[in-house]
């Protein structure tokens, strides 16, 4: 009997194997990702090594200056002010949103009837964009005409200068962001809670633990991975805050609310047109975000083993 005249690809031959087709089909996706992500990233890195000052008529050409932009930013006190504001905002907002989000998730988890309704209300603010939230709250927080001060006046509290007082402005922005994005934390923690098995809590209840003890010793350790996930995702987005500042205070009063992204924007396309310098600020800030995420990831893994 003659052997088959065509040979199936041998295991040794890569071409024609399943792995080959697997790689082949990822190529279009990689090309798109490369064009949309890698190219701007590399171009940005290159621009940050140049002096590209559109405000001096240089928009047609760049001048290579090596690391001078990075050296200049070390002495730029407005950049460090912006970084400080950003970390202050991120820390405060993270604490508020994590506590509020977890509380909401616990409540939603324990409500049997109508939980879908409450869940919709709590995550409703997520459906609007950040600039809409910013403009809405700018009106609500207006010292003379805003609804918030009106409500406060009903209980006898005088007019508060939310967005014009340098001490109150970051708490005000934390408030706006908490209203807007706490729903994200709620959803993540709620998913975590709903995935938990019921038995450990039953056992604890039978053993005589009260609700608080059950929460601290049973629920909390079990949802810790979800808490860390939510915290890390939220921290990355909080560090990148922009529209909420741009839409309400524009960085003021006197840079008290100017966050890193806003300063990068002001140095670049939104103001001074120092495109090279602004890009170097952006690269440095991205490095800070990476460091923060690495630290948070490291801390999350140091938790007690499951």
């Amino acid at each position, binding site marked *: 009997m003659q052997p088959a005249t065509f040979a199936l690809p041998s295991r040794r031959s890569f071409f024609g194997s399943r792995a080959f087709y697997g790689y082949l089909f990822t190529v279009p996706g990689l090309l798109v990702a490369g064009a949309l992500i890698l190219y701007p990233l590399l171009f940005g890195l290159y621009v940050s090594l140049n002096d590209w*000052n*559109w*405000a*001096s*008529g*240089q*928009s*047609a050409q760049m001048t290579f200056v090596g690391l001078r932009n990075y050296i*200049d930013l070390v002495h730029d006190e407005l950049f460090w002010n912006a970084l400080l504001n950003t970390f202050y905002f991120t820390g405060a907002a993270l604490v508020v949103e994590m506590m509020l989000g977890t509380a909401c998730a616990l409540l939603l988890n324990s409500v049997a009837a109508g939980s879908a309704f409450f869940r919709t209300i709590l995550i409703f603010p997520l459906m609007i964009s950040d600039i809409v939230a910013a403009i809405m709250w700018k009106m609500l927080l*207006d*010292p*003379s005409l805003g609804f918030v001060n009106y409500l406060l006046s009903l209980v006898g509290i005088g*007019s508060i*200068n939310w*967005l*014009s007082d*340098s001490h109150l402005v970051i708490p005000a922005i934390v408030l706006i962001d908490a209203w807007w994005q706490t729903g994200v934390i709620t959803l993540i923690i709620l998913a975590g809670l709903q995935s938990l098995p019921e038995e450990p809590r039953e056992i604890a209840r039978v053993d005589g633990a009260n609700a608080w003890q059950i929460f601290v010793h049973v629920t909390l350790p079990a949802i810790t991975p979800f808490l860390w996930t939510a915290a890390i995702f939220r921290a990355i987005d909080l560090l990148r805050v922009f529209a909420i500042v741009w839409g309400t*205070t*524009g960085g*003021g*009063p*006197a*840079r008290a609310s100017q966050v890193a992204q806003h300063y990068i924007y*002001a140095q670049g*396309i*939104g*103001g*001074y*047109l120092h495109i090279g310098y602004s890009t170097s600020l952006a690269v440095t800030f991205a490095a800070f975000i990476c460091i923060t995420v690495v630290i948070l990831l490291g801390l999350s893994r140091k938790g007690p083993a499951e």
Partner: protein
Amino acid sequence: MSLRTWLIRAASVLAAAISVSASPALADDFNWKQAQGQTVRVLLNSHPWQETLEKRIPEFEALTGIKVEVSSLAEATFWDRVTLGLSSNEPPFDVFMLSPNQTGYTGYQNGWIEPLDGYIKDASKTDAAYDFEDIYKYTVDGFRLPTADGKVYGIPISLETYMIFYRTDLFAEQGIDVSALGTVDDWLGALEKVNAAYKDKGIAAVSIRGQDPTMPDELLAAVNNYWGDRPFMAQRMFYFDENWKPRFTDPAVMKGFELWAKLLNFGPPGVENFTWYEVSNTFAQGRAATIWFDASVFAGMLNDPKQSTVVGKVGYAAVPKTETGHGTTHWGWGLGMTAKSPVKDAAWLFIQWATSKESDLDTGKATFGPVRASTWAALGGTFPPEFTKAADESFKISVPGYMYFDGAREVADRIIDAVMRLKAGEDPDAVMGQLNDQAAKIVEANHLKK
């Protein structure tokens, strides 16, 4: 026919032909339809001029057969859009509202804006009735770049000078005779009175710009009021001398800044974030007793019953004098054309139509800031007499208020920071000294010293 008869006939026909071609009646034959079928994209800032002009755009489309796509944006978004658009290789607009200092200088340096002299002089592209000379020369010069003898990069569309608006009813109630208020100190005394009387009723004494990126333009008026007759360089204004040495600790500059901070402290809560929208609206809604150092063009909106609750109660005054001087500034918007526009002739037709005598007459009624002598002559009588008097006086003492040079935006932002710090009560010598240092660094970083 004899030769003599033929010659006479030929001569008379020739004479008739020459006289017909020289007659002005032929100027009506300007071909408005020369760019028929094209589309012109226009980017405008939200402004009384824009609101009035947009209503008449169908007239232009009918006249020329050109389709016009208008995009009107609120000012904060407008600045970003105009800069991004101009810097692109294919700007998404052909015609745009031009601010000589914010956009004009940068645009000129980067070759983003088209010079218009060629179009104005070309009889085939410009209607003889356009009468470019009718537009006030000093406002046209503001659009000549890089200096007042350069080419024209924009055609003025509205002119404003910075003055005071006040509530005639509130001042009368307090028994304040405005004609007796001659100096800044007189007015500050009046403001104290008004503040004491009305602050608790929700009416602030002053409405003035705060953290508006354009506030330094109006601040120039306050500084000029103290500057006196001393010389200064155009474009650097009072802040830098011939060697680019910053002068923020000059007594006149400090007094101007301190006055602004004082006025801010008479303002309503939230005044720190006031842009010109909030300044004019606060007064129009009856929540402020005065507007300081702001645009004469507000008069149009304040007298419009659809937008203002204080129609008939508005008073006008030129800025009061100081111990060291008496002056204010003027400024104007213009229309420009992108250098990379694919439809330049069509865009020029739009610009000339939008800045023609008929247009200026129409928009001048809304802006109270026409740019043509003919319009002012026609409308001057229709404006409230006190406004005309105050505006005339203001224009007499005003200088062009355009600050532009490499790094001007950054200096403007540091100026805003300094004013806010003065408002918060920080020591003026420290604040202005630091501003001087920051300005020196900006001069250094932008290689301005040759």
